[in-house]
């Protein structure tokens, strides 16, 4: 790309500190959120361990619980997509498999998050 530009122009266009920090920052931001949300997840699992469906339903009918659960679905999906992107880029160098895996990575994160959120909404509305 930009084969006719001068090397200086290319360097200016590709240099750091333009969009390069977004990935890092997004990873850290979601990591902080996950720290709280994983704590909430573990608390929830202990609360619901061995309880019958009525109790589970009542638990999810709380708006705070539904909100935190949905937040965890989004935050972890965002975080793990960024994380897995780095893992793929570290180990897969050939273009075609790399792009296929990067696309699948995004699909996986989106599908898992949406599946969870739909179930959370159903439960919170009284399913």
């Amino acid at each position: 790309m930009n084969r006719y530009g001068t090397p200086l122009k290319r360097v200016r266009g590709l240099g750091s500190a333009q969009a390069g920090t977004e990935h890092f920052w997004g990873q850290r931001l979601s990591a902080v959120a996950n720290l709280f949300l994983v704590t909430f997840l573990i608390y929830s699992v202990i609360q619901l361990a061995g309880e019958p469906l009525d109790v589970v339903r009542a638990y999810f009918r709380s708006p705070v619980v539904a909100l935190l659960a949905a937040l965890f679905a989004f935050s972890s999906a965002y975080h793990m997509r960024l994380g897995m992107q780095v893992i793929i880029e570290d180990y897969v160098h050939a273009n075609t498999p790399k792009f296929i895996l990067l696309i699948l990575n995004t699909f996986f994160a989106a599908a898992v998050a949406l599946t969870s959120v739909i179930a959370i909404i159903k439960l919170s509305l009284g399913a």
Partner: protein
Amino acid sequence: MGKAEAQPARPLSPHLTIFRPYINMMMSILHRITGAANYFGTLLLAAWLTATASGPDGFMAANAVTASPIGLIILFLYSWSLIHHGLGGIRHFIWDTGRGFELPTIRLMSWATLAGSVTITLIIWFIGLTKWGAFS
């Protein structure tokens, strides 16, 4: 940028296989492994939520799987993986501030991550199993 036509055989530096394993190296790898495990763990959460939201039959099926020996082992490893990765993340936050790069500190934090994750996981399972009625 064209590829160099003839790559002369370069000497390779000693790689992974030749290093004695250090705790910081192990914890670095473990942060990646637990991250990847958590990645697929979200699939389990989504499955449990979907089954539970589908009604009594789905809920019973999900609980039967979770309470089976294999289910409990997977749940145990998943919980440890989340906790270990979370503690490893805190270690990263400390490094992000530019602190904690002295070798003794790095070693200490690496051991603390491992010891902390195992301890916290065991405590949480003790609480959870007690609540579940496993000891009564």
